[in-house]
């Protein structure tokens, strides 16, 4: 098509983030120029955030089916069967860019958004987890500020709405200095019958908007922000910050669940990025119908809003539902009870179009197909970095290499990546709803009772530094580590969700990281037989200095037959034997010790045999469930020595351990997902059928003493506690 579009419209589409080719495609599909309302809607629906332009093809590589699967990717949250007619729905989502702009509100609304995704499918949220990444706190006041405000924001929303924050993870690396990561995961439970899909259906049915008034929040906000690199000019994007109101969401949540329990709704959908535009398009697309929306009926917080503003507003705490006409009255009654606004704003049609009306007059009309399906999907152009060591310059060394094992251990325990997370998790309420059997610090995964005697375990993991070394193995490791964490509490994996946080995918080395990571994740999921039930992608996390560490964050949910038998990580009783279990390959690549010694994140990680690991995790899980082991902990950051120290600290007991000469890689090398430290009565441990079990010591006393060939250390538990407790406490 010749470049006939007027210059004004061509500059308009560029300002809205559409490429010239994309705009040409729109002209072709529409056979005309879009008006302002339509262009605003299209630019958002065709943004990276909504259309997954650079990731959708890759995501097809992830296995999405499994024996327990009830709802896979494509719905607001995925869901798995946990028995007794109960389903667990869960999803992880990023709110990285909004949190970089306004950390408190950004993080708070991130939690609000993921909660809505979960109750949109009819599940009552029962837990939140958060996965956070910041720059080096010791060198960056901004990172400390972001940490403080993000944690406060997550706590503010989760605590106020009465959903426990039961776990999470935090890492500090320089590559996140300009692009912090704030990923939040939510889990909910529902009777199978209440699980709800978003597909609109039944021409003539009424479209009802629930919840908050619509204001100018986030206009040109999240969707556009999430699709462009945050540069020097991020000040300009500021006026559209969304403010979270957990009180409004609490009422909305109770209201929606009551509406579903009373079977008053045909379908339900949250309003997130791109507001009404995205919700309406998705609902229409999934149901193969059209929708008419009259923006003049949308209740506004500010009187003079334009139709396009109403269509793209990202005001929080709103939901959209489809209701049969004769039930609208009943819906409004339930909403009135919960002091939640309910406004019919349109209807389902068989036109296949999203029609926007203003006082009955059409102001925009777009085929659902064009909005949802026609955005081009791009192939990536992956190539490994030419000089991997230059990609992520190391931080200054804090250890020279001359230190004793005891000095190394204390420095590791003080490291912000390993130190006690108590200063953070004490700001969260992990116990509301009375389900939490394992709180933070008590075990490798959180454990929640379901009320029918059963329980679930949940863990969230993803070490960007290891993925930076070796994207394929590192991403697989994140999956294995989650599974290992579940094994530690006796839980069998049912499904996983993930958030892919990466740099600019148009750059070949980032495309390579992304491709490798997705492949690694897919391989691990296949090996474990765990389906991906959903997730989220956050790209363009890139500063002038380069991309963030490639950071796939994995959240995994598993089932336990009984909460009574949930595993713990602390040593339980003096006299218990301590054993090393599994496949522990000694290597310092990607380890915290390597970082403290100022080494760049390069080198390949041990390739893991997924089948062996699946059997290993099954054996560990069985040993936890049968009570053969009294404590169980996987060997992750800081290696075996830190794992032993953590078991001592959690149980407030000492230990004496003797290892074959293994050198520093044996003491401080990391093996996430591959190896465990367990304890229990010796004869029970040895009879438990655990692969590669080596008894290495005994629980007792009030210090950790360890010898390995010519290396040895002896530290009082109380000294280790001071080191570990102080690491973060002085930063937050």
């Amino acid at each position, binding site marked *: 098509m010749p470049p006939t579009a007027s210059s004004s419209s061509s500059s308009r589409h560029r300002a809205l983030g559409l490429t010239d080719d994309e705009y040409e495609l729109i002209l072709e599909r529409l056979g005309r120029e879009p008006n302002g309302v339509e262009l605003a809607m299209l630019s958002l629906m065709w943004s990276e955030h909504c259309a997954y332009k650079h990731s959708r093809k890759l995501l097809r590589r992830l296995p999405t089916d499994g024996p327990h699967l009830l709802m896979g990717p494509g719905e607001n949250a995925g869901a798995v069967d946990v028995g007794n007619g109960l389903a667990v729905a869960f999803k992880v989502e990023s709110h990285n860019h909004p949190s970089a702009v306004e950390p408190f509100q950004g993080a708070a609304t991130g939690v609000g958004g993921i909660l809505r995704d979960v109750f949109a499918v009819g599940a009552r949220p029962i837990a939140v987890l958060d996965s956070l990444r910041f720059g080096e706190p010791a060198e960056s006041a901004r990172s400390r500020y972001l940490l403080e405000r993000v944690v406060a924001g997550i706590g503010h929303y989760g605590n106020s709405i009465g959903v426990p924050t039961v776990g999470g993870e935090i890492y500090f690396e320089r590559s996140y200095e300009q692009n912090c990561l704030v990923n939040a995961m939510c889990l909910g439970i529902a009777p199978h019958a209440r699980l709800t899909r978003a597909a609109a259906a039944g021409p003539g049915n009424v479209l009802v908007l629930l919840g908050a008034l619509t204001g100018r929040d986030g206009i040109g906000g999240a969707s556009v922000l999430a699709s462009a690199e945050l540069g020097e000019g991020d000040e300009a994007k500021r006026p559209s*910050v969304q*403010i979270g109101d957990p009180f*409004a969401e609490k009422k909305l949540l109770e209201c929606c669940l009551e509406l579903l329990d009373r079977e008053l709704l045909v379908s339900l959908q949250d309003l997130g990025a791109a507001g009404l535009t995205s919700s309406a398009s998705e609902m229409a697309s999934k149901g193969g119908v059209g929708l008419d929306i009259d923006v003049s009926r949308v209740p506004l917080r500010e009187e003079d809003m334009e139709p396009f503003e109403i269509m793209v507003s990202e005001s929080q705490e709103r939901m959209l539902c489809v209701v049969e006409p004769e039930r609208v009255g009943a819906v409004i009654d339930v909403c009135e009870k919960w002091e939640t606004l309910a406004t019919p704003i349109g209807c389902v049609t068989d036109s296949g179009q999203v029609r926007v009306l203003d006082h009955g007059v059409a102001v925009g009309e777009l085929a659902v197909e064009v909005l949802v399906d026609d955005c081009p999907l791009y192939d990536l152009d992956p190539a490994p970095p030419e000089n991997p060591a230059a990609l992520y310059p190391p931080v200054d060394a804090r250890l020279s290499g001359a230190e004793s094992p005891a000095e190394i251990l204390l420095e590791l325990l003080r490291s912000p990546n390993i130190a006690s997370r108590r200063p953070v998790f004490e700001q969260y309420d992990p116990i509301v709803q009375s389900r939490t059997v394992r709180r933070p610090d008590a075990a490798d995964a959180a454990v929640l009772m379901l009320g029918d005697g059963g329980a679930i375990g949940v863990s969230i993991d993803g070490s960007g530094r290891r993925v930076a070394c070796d994207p394929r193995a590192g991403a697989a490791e994140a999956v294995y580590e989650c599974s290992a964490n579940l094994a530690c509490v006796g839980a069998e994996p049912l499904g996983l969700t993930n958030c892919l946080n990466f740099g600019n995918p148009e750059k070949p080395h980032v495309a390579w990281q992304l491709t490798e990571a997705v492949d690694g994740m897919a391989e691990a999921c296949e090996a474990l037989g765990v389906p991906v039930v959903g997730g989220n992608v956050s790209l363009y996390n890139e500063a002038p200095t380069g991309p963030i560490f490639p950071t796939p964050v994995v959240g995994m949910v598993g089932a336990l037959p009984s909460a009574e038998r949930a595993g713990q990580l602390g040593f339980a009783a003096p006299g218990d034997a301590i054993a090393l279990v599994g496949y522990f390959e000694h290597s310092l690549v990607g380890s915290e010790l390597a970082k403290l010694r100022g080494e760049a994140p390069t080198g390949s990680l041990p390739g893991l045999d997924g089948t062996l690991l699946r059997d290993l995790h099954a054996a560990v899980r069985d040993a936890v469930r049968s009570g053969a082991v009294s404590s169980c902990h996987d060997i992750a950051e800081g290696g075996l020595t830190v794992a032993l120290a953590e078991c001592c600290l959690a149980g407030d007991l000492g230990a004496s351990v003797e290892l074959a000469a293994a050198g520093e890689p044996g003491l401080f090398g990391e093996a996430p997902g591959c190896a465990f430290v367990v304890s229990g009565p010796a004869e029970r441990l040895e009879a438990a059928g655990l692969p590669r079990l080596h008894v290495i010591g005994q629980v007792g006393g009030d210090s950790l003493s360890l010898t390995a060939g010519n290396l040895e250390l002896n530290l009082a538990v109380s000294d280790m506690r001071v080191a570990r407790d102080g690491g973060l406490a002085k930063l937050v």
Partner: protein
Amino acid sequence: MRARVLVRPKQGILDPQGQAVERALPALGFAGVSHVHVGRLIELDVEDPDQLPDMCERLLANPLIEDYEIVDADAAVGS
């Protein structure tokens, strides 16, 4: 100088506190109240009042979501 800094949610930004108060007042029998906004009041002695705008921008207010106003407390009179 004794200064007062009044910090309020920016126009157009959601103010859940203001909404909550506005809804509560009629229930208490107070009619005819509208446009309620809840913000912060900071009172302080400053040696150099010229520093106040900068203090507000950097610490006392969050310019992204809040407006502020600086008042001379000694000059201000209550009604």
